[in-house]
């Protein structure tokens, strides 16, 4: 098998980029990536994938809730003293500790989920990536066999690509 190659179409209009993504996907290309300076619903919807972030938030949040409560209950049982007229394991005031640790760990989990989901941090730009894509242009990148390059370039051009770059 020949080496995979990469081609990038640069579009002025997000709708054109989304249309190009849809056509490329319909033709069976699977390694498609879109770039945009702002989140574009149409473009994101045209590509598969569901971010895992929420699971990190949920699990870390639950861990925080249990952890916060466990910290308060277990440490107060060490000396087992009545303080402030409340039993050593006083769940009501400990809910506040638990609540805060839920949010804290839930938030940290969300950050980890974001980094994992988005595959960040990344040292190098993906091949062909162009600084125009963080300003006002929309990009569609496809990994393909060398013989498909012409077809893709044509598709991009048909959808009004301003520029087509090849590796």
């Amino acid at each position, binding site marked *: 098998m020949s080496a995979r190659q990469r081609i990038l179409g640069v579009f002025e209009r997000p709708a054109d980029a989304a249309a190009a993504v849809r056509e490329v996907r319909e033709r069976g290309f699977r390694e498609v990536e879109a770039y*945009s300076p*702002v989140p574009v619903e149409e473009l*994101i919807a045209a590509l598969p994938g569901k971010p895992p972030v929420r699971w990190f938030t949920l699990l870390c949040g639950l861990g925080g809730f249990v952890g916060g409560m466990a910290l308060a209950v277990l440490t107060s049982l060490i000396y087992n003293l009545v303080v402030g007229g409340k039993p050593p394991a006083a769940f009501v005031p400990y809910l506040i500790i638990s609540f*805060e640790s839920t949010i804290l760990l839930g938030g940290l989990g969300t950050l980890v989920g974001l980094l994992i989901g988005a595959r*960040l941090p990344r*040292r190098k730009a993906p091949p062909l990536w162009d600084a125009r894509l963080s300003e006002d242009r929309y990009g569609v990148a496809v990994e393909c066999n060398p013989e498909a390059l012409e077809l893709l370039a044509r598709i991009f051009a048909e959808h009004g690509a301003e520029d087509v770059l090849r590796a």
Partner: protein
Amino acid sequence: MAALTYREVADKVLRAMTRPGPVYTALLGLCVSLVALGGVAWAYQIETGIGVSVKTNPVGWSLYITTFVFWVGIAHSGTLISAILFLLRARWRTSIFRSAEAMTVIAVMTAGLFPFIHLGRVWRVYYLLPYPNQRELWPNFKSPLIWDVFAISTYFTISAIFFFIGMIPDLAVIRDRAKGWRRRIYGVLSFGWRGSDREWQSYLSAYVLFAGLATPLVISVHSVVSWDFAMSIVPGWHTTIFAPYFVAGAIHSGFAMVLTLLIPLRRILQCEDLITRRHLENMAKVIILTGLIVGYAYGLEFFLAWYGGNKAEYDVFVYRATGHYAVEYWIMVTCNALLPLAFFVKKVRTSLVALFVLSILINVGMWFERFVIIVTSLSHEYLPHGWGEIHLFAAGEWKWVDLAIVAGSFGWFFMWFLLFLKTLPWISITEVREGLHAKAAHQTPAGEVRP
């Protein structure tokens, strides 16, 4: 705003990050001097002992805790604007939320200094944290003070991460425009963001989750701060209305501080078309609401003190309004509850001068609110022989340390805000662009969207 292109948005926002002029340098110098003054005062207090501070029996919590609560309050509008207004899909937040978030993070950084300063033996501050130790001693988790440690540190962490995450796409824009070492620094800060669909998916998902987490958090933080007081049995503190009363007050002062900062900034940085009068007017409307809540709480406290039939409680309230601190009390009522009513008049809330002046007065009033709550109650507890006031001038000398430290905290706050303006994008480039994108998509048929 419709005429702007994506590039122009970034040009406009990043104009703030050019080489500083003499006014900026002078302001920064002033702030650094104030920080130095506060630092010297604190060093003197540590060296000499906490007796140099104005706080003394029976008023063990005075200007430091007042200023702590003041800064925590200031920190509230940032997350309110960025998280709650985001969940409510209030689009007007777009151009103001970044600077409000920065203000939040910086205000918590400022507030966070005060528990340290307030402690006589600051080197023992780690006692507050739960850490494993040989004697198996742990904090008392039933104490509101330890709840506060958890609440404030969680709030700082979450609002700082939220602030930073929201900035990643903007940092990538700066990276791509920069050269040399700046490019490398912003490259690292932007985590190598390229705006791919995968990145946006995770980003959008994380942003909503963060907003969802931050919303109950922002309400919990000032509630917990209020419980520092309400959980005790000190007359004037021991009341269930404290949590909503403090949260409303926090939003009141936070929005006022956003106005104080943004009104000059939008002019100096020529961003009047990004931060329009509508934004300022909307904030004034929020201030009307919070001002009414705060005013209602002031009245309700009196009603409860009278209706509750608790003599000590009632006496404290009469003392607040007519006693040694009556001036401070009436400053509080006038600035927080009465003056904001002027915003009902459209002419007032659309006048930049009126907005600016009133926003400062509200912050003066909010500082005094915390002062009145904290100091008057401690001055006038149950036993008459335990009553006593604090005096800035006593026994022939000025208690300058507290005032120097409070002034230093303002220097610290404005110093970080000035540094923020020169190093990070003060308006969200991405969200303003997104607004343009949405507008264009709304106005022209599909396929004709132009950036």
